């Protein structure tokens, strides 16, 4: 598998009133082309900072991020970030939101393409709705579709479904997996939810508490579609939780 993203020893600290604070301290890993890598870590461990560096929004103090072998120092539409709080523009309709990133391609029939992706994520019939008329799950679908429509090679997802209730979270994961089976994207997803990680990942990386370092890596060789109640999933879950410092007996 060709290497899509290479993260080389990135580190980032911030200055706070209490003095310097190391948030990410030398993280290195690679993501293969078309691979789904999920990073899990305890809350407040610097996951979001790491993601912002990889997506190009924050410059690392040290180290570098390479995409297709070239250094990435600023965000590009080649890798779209979907974050926990969402950024679907509330002043645009679903269709206008989906067409937003297509502005460079004047010759394309943008509306048709937007509607096509709205249908893919199950928003058919809501193209002309405004975000405040949609539910939380539908907003996530709109956000996903807006990213997919520009055909990014990479999807960066920072706790994408954690604001949803458990049932909607599960449905959105299935939805994501269905889309990824149809359209090929490299995915880097961050979560604190171990079950979510095992459900979607080809590989799970475990981060240490702050300052974040890479602590462990697990290949998830479980056949898809995965049954979350299967013994192998449970076994892996226990192993990952143990890395996170949570014992089964707790």
């Amino acid at each position: 598998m060709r290497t899509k993203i290479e993260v080389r020893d990135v580190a980032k600290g911030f200055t706070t009133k209490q003095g310097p604070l190391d948030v990410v301290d030398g993280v290195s890993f690679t993501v293969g082309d078309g691979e789904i890598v999920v990073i899990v870590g305890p809350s407040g461990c610097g996951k979001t900072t790491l993601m912002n560096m990889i997506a190009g929004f924050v410059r690392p103090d040290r180290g570098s991020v390479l995409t297709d072998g070239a250094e990435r120092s600023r965000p590009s539409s080649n890798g779209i970030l979907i974050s926990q709080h969402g950024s679907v523009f509330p002043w645009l309709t679903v269709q206008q939101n989906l067409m937003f990133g297509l502005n460079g391609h004047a010759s394309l029939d943008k509306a048709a393409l937007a509607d096509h992706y709205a249908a893919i994520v199950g928003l058919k019939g809501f193209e002309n709705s405004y975000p405040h008329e949609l539910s939380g799950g539908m907003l996530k679908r709109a956000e996903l579709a807006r990213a997919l429509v520009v055909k990014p090679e990479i999807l960066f997802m920072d706790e994408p479904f954690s604001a949803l209730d458990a049932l909607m979270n599960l449905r959105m994961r299935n939805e994501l997996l269905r889309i990824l089976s149809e359209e090929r994207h490299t995915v880097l997803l961050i979560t604190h939810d171990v079950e979510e990680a095992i459900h979607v990942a080809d590989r799970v990386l475990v981060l240490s508490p702050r300052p974040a370092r890479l602590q462990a890596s697990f290949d998830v060789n479980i056949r898809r579609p995965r049954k979350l109640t299967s013994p192998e999933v449970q076994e892996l879950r226990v192993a990952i939780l143990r890395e996170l410092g949570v014992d089964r007996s707790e």
Partner: protein
Amino acid sequence: MQKVLPSVAVIAVLIAVWWVTVIATGSVIFPTPWQVVTGAEELIEDGTLFQHIGASLARVGSGFCLAVLVGLPLGLWMGWVRGAYSTLNPIFQILRPISPIAWIPIAILWFGVGNASPIFLIFISSVFPMVVQTTAGVHTIEQRYLQAAENFGVARYTLFTQVVIPAVLPQIIVGMRIGLGVAWLVVVAAEMIALRSGLGYLIIDSRNARNRYDLVIASMIIIGLIGLLLDGAMRLLEGLKSVKWRYAHQD
């Protein structure tokens, strides 16, 4: 219906108290509500009322439009460019608390006693709230939206037309509402000086030349009603679907 009933009742009581007081005190100058109504009828019949309303609205319209044309681009620029904000904001903060009425002598000095003076005063009074609201609107655009726009790598034009301006539009509408409200207050005051038309002139003329307090009060009520209509018109803008997201939680 249930909602308006109490306020209608209060208005009815106020009119009744007014009426009874005028009769009880036997005042010859202060009119009864009925005299106000007949006074207003008189103004409607000879056509002068609509001339005065038209003159006032035309002044407010031109001064307000000028303020929109100047205030909105200025506010967007000050909001977006940090240097513009730090340079101009102190000046605006000093000029803003000066009552538009205080500008009257300067307006007369610069623009004489024609229509230009009140238009200038209306411009001065409504441009500041619009600049301030627009600037604040740009400053409060949530980072996640700007970050998303950056992520998709759109052109600067698209960034402004599809993200910055629509994000600020709800604040712009608030600024316009405040600006128009102040403009309507100021036009009446401005017309009391040296002009021969407008609702402000009508009040001063009714008092000075004719001692007609029925017309004074009729004009005051008409000013209030037109102000209410203007505000209602601006409120309609808040119902636009593309700005509802901002006001939705206030319903």
